[in-house]
Each structure stands twice: as C-alpha cells, then as structure tokens.
C-alpha cells in the first residue's frame, strides 16, 4: 500500500483525533435515522421464536408469573419487550402476576401497562365496586382486563434468589400483600389456587443482571420445575445461551433486537422495530471505527519500525 508523507500525516492525525469528534459522529449516526422514518424487516432468530411459541402454547386462562428484574438503566432494551409481552398475553387471554426482584421492576411494569392502555378516563360500577379505567380496568385492543382478576402486581421483595426459593414453598410468605392497594393477596380472585411457584404455567423474566435469569433458571426451573422464558439485555444474553441449549430456558430474547423480533412475530410493531435503523447504523459505525483505528495504528506503527531499523 502506498504510504507517502501525506498518508503518514493523515494516519497520525487520525490516531490523535479528539474523542469528542467520535462522540459527535455517533450522536449523528444514531439521530439521523430517527428522522428518516425508514422501516426495515428483521429476520427472526430461533431463540425468539421459541419464546413466542412457549407463550402461544398456553391455553386461555393460564396464569403466568412475570418477574421484572431491571431498572430504568435498561429501559430502552427491556421496556419494548415488556410492552409487547403484555399485549401478547392479553391478546391470548392469559392472566399474569407481576413481581420484581429489583425494586424498580414493578414500577417499570406499571409504566408499561399505562402505556399500552387505551382508555384512561371514566369508571364502571360492578357489585358496588367503582372500577376506574386506566387503573382497575385496562383496555388493550378489543380486550378489557381487570386488576385482581386478570392481573395483579405483587411488587418487589428483597432477598434475591431467596425470594424465588421462598415462593417455591409459599407465594404468600414471600408476598403477603399486593403492591397497588396493600391488601392481602388472598382477597384477589386471580390468586385462587396459586400457592407455590409450581402452580404457575410459565415464568417470564425480564432481566438486566443479578438477580435475574440465572437465578430463575437455577431455582424456578431446576428446583421447582416451572418452565421459564426470558428477555435479557444484550450484555447479559450471551451468558445465558448455554441454558437455551440445555432446554433450561424455554426461549430467549436478547436486547432491543430481540424485542424487535418479538414485535415482528406478534405483529405488533412498536418502539424496538422503529429503533432498528439507528441500531444498524450504530453497528456499522462501530465496525468502521475499529477498522479505521486499526488501519491508522498499523500504518503508523510500520513506519516507526522502519525508522528505527
């Protein structure tokens, strides 16, 4: 390759580039696609299909435990999955019980429910109970679900994997009250006959780290034999792939890309799908950065060696 004095200067300048310029390039690379409004098709991977199938296999009226084990730090990756997950469960008439091993988890669940709810004004009176839309009643597409009957939020409990262990023998010991009203959970019809972990048909876990998918696999799956599907941040996903191979996990979604694939499968394209153009641009630029950085490094290094010799 020609490597004259001009090339040398260029490569050396490239190596010395201010990192704020790189910051700016990344900012632009991710921002511009947002305004282009492009939509791209994504190929669905086997692991996401497995997750989708494990939800599809549940009969209507099944009860699923949804554990929200993340905080706002991972919101862009996991929130789209959580929202699509809710829609998917509601569409298939599956009841869900929300909990969290992270304190922020149940609030993220509330946030997702508020977002997918389509009617947030007005109320109904049923047997003397006043039920408010947006709070006790959520409307999602053609379906209306009611708190305490179709879904419930048990809140957070401290103790990491020991909470799962405790739920193995008694859910009530781990969660005495619900999170919304602070009432004993026996007062809600959805909890009828739900005494321990193995009474659930499926555990779905949105996880950003510890405690999360690893603990659900170790305790819920291997100890109490409840199938578990998970959505993970992309950082964590590669570490739990071995569980997928062994069948300890019934499905896995990794990061925003996993969320986008899930949206594609359910036909509910939303935020994750929209973000895929920016995501693609980001990957291209990181690859380019590595290539250019290496090129500049090896070109200048080669010259230095020659100089010394």
């Amino acid at each position: 390759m020609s490597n004259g004095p001009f090339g040398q200067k260029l490569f050396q300048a490239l190596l010395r580039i201010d990192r704020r310029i790189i910051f700016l390039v990344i900012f632009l690379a991710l921002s511009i696609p947002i305004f282009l409004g492009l939509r791209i098709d994504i190929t669905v991977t086997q692991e996401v299909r497995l997750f989708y199938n494990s939800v599809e296999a549940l009969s209507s009226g099944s009860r699923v435990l949804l554990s929200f084990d993340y905080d706002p730090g991972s919101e862009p990756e996991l929130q789209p999955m959580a929202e699509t997950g809710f829609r998917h469960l509601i569409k298939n008439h599956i009841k869900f019980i929300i909990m969290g091993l992270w304190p922020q988890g149940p609030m993220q669940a509330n946030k997702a429910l508020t977002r997918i709810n389509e009617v947030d004004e007005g109320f109904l009176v049923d047997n003397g109970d006043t039920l408010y839309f947006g709070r006790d009643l959520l409307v999602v597409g053609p379906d209306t679900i009611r708190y305490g009957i179709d879904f419930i939020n048990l809140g957070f409990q401290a103790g990491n994997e020991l909470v799962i262990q405790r739920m193995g023998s008694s859910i009530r010991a781990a969660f005495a009250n619900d999170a919304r009203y602070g009432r004993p959970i026996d007062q809600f019809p959805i909890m009828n006959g739900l005494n321990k972990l193995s009474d659930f048909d499926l555990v779905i876990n949105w996880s950003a780290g510890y405690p999360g998918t690893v603990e659900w696999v170790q305790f819920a799956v291997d100890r109490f034999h409840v199938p578990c599907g998970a959505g993970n941040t992309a950082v964590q996903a590669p570490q739990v792939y071995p569980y997928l191979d062994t069948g300890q996990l019934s499905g896995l979604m990794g990061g925003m890309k996993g969320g986008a694939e899930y949206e594609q499968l359910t036909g509910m394209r939303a935020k994750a799908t929209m973000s895929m153009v920016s995501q693609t641009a980001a990957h291209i630029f990181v690859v380019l950065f590595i290539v250019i950085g290496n090129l500049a490094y090896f070109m200048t290094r080669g010259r230095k060696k020659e100089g010394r010799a």
Partner: protein
Amino acid sequence: MKREIPLILTAIVGLTFVVQFFVPHYPMGFLADMFSDWFSIIAAAAIWLGALNLMRVSAEKIYKREKDRFYAGVTIASFFLIVIIGFFFSGGRSFQEPGTRFDWLYINIYTPLMATMFALLAFFVASASYRAFRARNAQATVLLLAAFVVMLGRTPFGDWISNVLFLPEGWGIANLSNIIMNYFNVAGQRAIMIGIALGIVSTSLRIILGIERTYLGGD
C-alpha cells in the same frame, strides 16, 4: 462473641440450606423457609444501612467544609426530598402507583438520570472501539472478527453485505452469527460457567466449614 458466633451461625444456616435440598420436610424445610424470611429482612436492613451511611458520609463532608460540600448537600437534600414525599405524600402503601408524587419523581428525575448515565456508555464504547481494539495478534483478530460477524449479522446490514458478496441464500453473515452464538459462544460460556460453578461449590464449602473467614473482616 466477635468471631465464634458468626462462624457457628454461618455453618448452621448454610448446612440447613444444603440439607433441605435433600430433605425438604420438617424441620429442615421449616428452618430454610424461616432463614429465607430473615434473609429478606436483613437484606432490607443492609440497604437502609447503605443509604444511612451515605447520609453520614455526606454530612461529614459538609461539617468538615470539604471542597465538594455543595454536592454533598445536594445529595442529602434530594434524599430527604424523595423520602419525605414517599413517606408522607404518596398514599402510603400505594406509593408507587401511577400518578403518585413518588411516581412523578421516579419518572421525571430518577429515570432520566439513570437511563442517561447508562446511555453515556454508548459514546465510550464507540471511542474505545476506535482507540483500543487493535488486532495485535491472532487471538485479538479472532475476537474482533467474531464481534464483526455478530454485530453485522444481527442487523439487516449483514444481509445486504451477504448479497453484495454473492453469498448464497441461507449462507450469509446472519447465519454465521447464529452459528457463533449458538455453538461457539455456548461452548465458551459453558466452559466459563462450569469453571465458576466449581469455584462457587468449593468456596461455599469453605465458608460453611469456617475455613474461609475473610467476610468477617479484621480482628
């Protein structure tokens, strides 16, 4: 008192949890459940301890008139802001429901601060990619190539490149990234997993038997 009782407690609790896997009946099951409940409450107390300690350290900074005392003041003030609002102005046990003042703080202060802190990492990853990831030897080159395949294969751009390179349908970069994730990655992660598992089993045993005592600290 200072060392013996904790060592005995660790051994009793640890053995209980080991035995209840094999004998889940009374009294082992009962004891394990009780210790789990205790764990939960101690964990909560530990988090309270952390928060209170932060207040103490921050208060000391102000008291000693240290350089960054203003920021220590901000920390204390914001702590009390959310604590007072959470305890007295957010509906008690329903404190985290949508629409409460606590929820407002969570959505509009806590969430943007935390999410943006993590989002900054995107910039640093990009900068590190440019400056630090060098294909200095064969191993580093393999690492980078695997990263390229995974990064491109997980986006539609991978398909586009595969078309440009005239790769046959089903034999593109996306398929290669599936192979890396489902086989090479699984093999490597599994080796790490098994190694860590063996380490944890032996460390746990050392802790339960009282050989490993570093968690008790000095004297």
